[in-house]
């Protein structure tokens, strides 16, 4: 008996509490910057595509919903010829972002991707590529890598010595 009355009383008290319901879509919920929502491809500080088509995201993807093909630009820079994510399969686990060695693929706080037609959930590169750096500004993979693919010359990277002179006899 006591327990029933107590329950009624507590329920009654809730009338005076602040409501938790949010009037979505008029009111948007707060999503943290690291929320795992829609996937984007970002650019580096020079506004070049960050993706180097290494295929690690595709390999990490548990639903195998990423496919891409590597191609080479005139200066040797690697980029994806096509990059496709089938969002109707994506589970937004974020493993692709974790696997990405160049910060190219990022998950952003946007979940409003509902479609009536499932085919519309297939995103190509032009749908994925944004004109910004996303969460990790000022990172440029090619300045860290050893290769010369048009961004820096050999030996001009952030952690590189000048190229070796193979003809010298000095110790």
């Amino acid at each position, binding site marked *: 008996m006591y327990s029933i009355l107590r329950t009624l009383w507590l329920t009654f008290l809730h009338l005076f509490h602040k409501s938790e319901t949010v009037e979505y879509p008029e009111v948007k919920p707060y999503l943290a910057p690291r929320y795992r929502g829609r996937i984007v491809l970002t650019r580096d500080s020079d506004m070049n595509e960050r993706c*180097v088509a290494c295929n690690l995201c595709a*390999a990490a993807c548990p639903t195998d919903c990423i496919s*891409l093909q590597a191609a080479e630009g005139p200066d040797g820079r690697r980029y994806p010829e096509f990059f496709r994510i089938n969002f109707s399969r994506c589970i937004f686990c974020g493993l692709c972002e974790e696997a990405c060695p160049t910060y190219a693929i990022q998950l952003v706080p946007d979940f409003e991707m509902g479609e009536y037609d499932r085919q519309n959930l297939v995103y190509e590169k032009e749908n994925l590529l944004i004109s910004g750096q996303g969460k990790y500004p000022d990172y440029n*993979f090619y300045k860290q890598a050893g290769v010369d693919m048009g961004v820096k010359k050999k030996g001009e990277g952030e*952690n590189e010595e000048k190229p*070796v002179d193979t003809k010298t006899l000095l110790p």
Partner: protein
Amino acid sequence: MAKIKIDGKQFEVEAGKNLLDTCLELGFDIPHFCFHPALGSVGSCRLCAVKKYKDEEDSRGRIVMSCMEPVTDGLIISTHDEEEKTFRAEVVESLMTNHPHDCPVCDEGGECHLQDMTVMTGHNYRQFDFKKRTYQNQELGPFIKHEMNRCIQCYRCVRFYKDYAGGKDLNVFASNNRVYFGRFEDGTLENEFSGNLTEVCPTGVFTDKTAHKHFTRKWDLSNTPSVCTHCSLGCNTLAGERYGTLRRIRNRYHGDINGYFLCDRGRFGYEFVGSDNRIKEIWKQNGNREVVSSESLSEVLSGAFQEGHNMVGIGSPRASLEANYSLLSLVGTDHFYHGVSAHEYELTKMALDFMQNSGIQIPTLKQMETADVVLILGEDLVNTAPRMALAVRQAARHSMNKDAGAKKIPEWTELAVRDNQPVLSTQIYVATPKKDSLDDVIKQPFRGGYSEIAALASSVAALLDKNAPAADSEHKKLASDIAKALQNAENPLIISGVTCGDKEVLQSACNVAQALLNNDKKVMLGMIFPESNSTGLSLFPGKPLADLFASSEKKPVDTLVVLENDLYRRAETGQVNDFLLKCKQVIVLDQLQNETTVKADVVLPAAVFSESEGTLVNNEGRAQRFYKAIPDGENGQARESWLWLNELKEIKENGFEGWSSLDDVFQSMLNELPAFAALKGKFPDEGFRMLGRKIPRESFRYSGRTSIHARESVSESYPPEDFDSPFAFSMEGQQEDPPSSLITSYWSPGWNSVQATNKYLDKPNGDLKGGNPGIRIFPTAAKSKTSYFKLNGSKSNKGTGEWQLFPVYQIFGSEELSAAASSLSERIKEPFLLLHPDDARDAGIDESTAVQVEIKNEKLTLRVNFENSLPRKVAGVSLQLPGMPFVALPGSGKITKM
């Protein structure tokens, strides 16, 4: 045998080998870089450290390099002691201090030995905060990409390129911490085996430039076992597919044939499948070209197969047994012609007859490596059967090992063996008209025209056996040297071939072999044939092309079906023109456009090797299956040749039910042609299952399954079915331990790189577990049933003013299909004539000028190249290069200045 103890477990192993080799054979995962089973040990990377204990009481032990440690009885080692684990991790850490942060853009990533070893030794995080060493790269030509920053100085590349393959233009430069592997200056790597650097290099310094154009990671490739179709040796390859196109060719280990290495033609020639010249539609040609749909094909061809028509089929030495058989069954045995010249037909039959009935040993390439005396007659190995040249080169190294062995130097200690005797003391005799790639390892080169070569060989035979037909050779000293060497040899090897085209040379080579056989000596005879299935085709009933040309004079051909064959490469242009004019309807099945397809009334697009399946017979009579890497329907209307011929047969015979799968064709071939009886039940058929499942082509890490076709339709469809093979176009199925002929990829836990190959072998550099694939078709006679060939004696051309002309083949360009590969095209030379500079001066001809060469009815304009090694009055004509018409060579001809 020796009893050794590894990690407390007893093993009984072969004594005298090195410890690393033995541990790998036993299945232990010992990290290593510089050791390669085919290249031996040099102990330069210090990664294969293990701990060796003095006796059971010793608990401290000491660290030794397992690759430099001989296996002895009572050896006690551990592979997992803390101290040695730290040692190995630190070795990798020090190597990684200069290794760049490149993996995402490195083509080796995912199949990198350095990645594997880094993970295996447990060096997970980098602590090196200082600057990294950098190098400038070199431009190394159309096949190989160079990225020197990634080098870890293991020396494998120069050990393969210089020591194993005899290359001259790759070396190690500079000193100290600046050691550099490359050429003296930028330029194309000239050696014919340079492509193997991509597999030998444990990191991404040397990578495949052709695959880079359409790069795919190893785990994303759908791999299928294939057989190289670019020469008669039948090296095993792995064809990798992604998104419906062929991405790359890699070596597939075969203990008897190619081992770990392929030639560049085999590795890079695959690009012809994507050539602009590919035929992908059915064409009806009558002045103009019309594309025909598959449905209306029977309408187009309805007139061709009427009753009473004279129907003729021309087979091909580059088409599979099944395709040739389908043609034979369409036109009937009496109307089936081998698509080769009468000369080639005769020589091939003769060589095969000798191989089958003489009781001689037909060696595998592996056995050739053990020969102690080699006699090569007339064949330019590196250009006609490249991988065999590499095997013969190993015979030279083998003799070096033997000498070292006598001084108790183990043969796997690379450097010590070479230091012991830097000058090769091998007994390889090469008798060819021009300088040979093997010249640097041979005892004494012999340069002469084919008649002199035949005379030399005949006098060798006569010296070995008095009953052999003798010939007068001016080189008595050399002949007796060779005869003496062959007589004293334990494992003599004689190499000749149909490719050189000279009957006398071939016959005299057989006579030498016969003479040794008559002396009750064990002898090996290596034969080279012109194309990938020359041997198989010659086991078919049928006549050569010349017979067809002759009979068409009397009885015109109503319908001609040409299977994968460019007739203009087989007979003189005028002859083929006349013949084709006489044929009412010409139906040609081929992969690439050529002169014959231009003349055809109907062209059917045939599938290339990577899109089809069949059996090829190589030079030693070994039948091997290749399987399709690409599902049907990816290349327009292109279909497998047997399917087209099956359809033609359905059109021709209303009652014919057709074959439903390749197994049906194969079965009915076995029933009809007794020559192939040995193949009965030897190949796993379509019904083959492992634990109830097919063998998957895709790796279990294959990515993008739900996305690849999403653009066309987001609903996933069933994967394409394969009704002809034990493979599935899928990642589902039984991947572990497939039969040796059905290996689709080399992978083992912890071993993602090609070094995982060792896990599939009974021992490193040994045979595949379960036996090497392929079935020898013909049994060799137990007792010699052959006798000496009678030679007609050499025809001298002295005083006639005519030149002795011999064929010159090129590794790049002389083979029809690979010549269309885009990367090879940079290496293909223009048709040329080789002349001795003195001869040229006498005739008033300058280098690089054009001359007219008259051979029988053909007049050719060729550019002159000087060649010092040629004998006088002998000239070489480049054969079968793109743009060269057919000429009957060897022969005599006139050379006139223009």
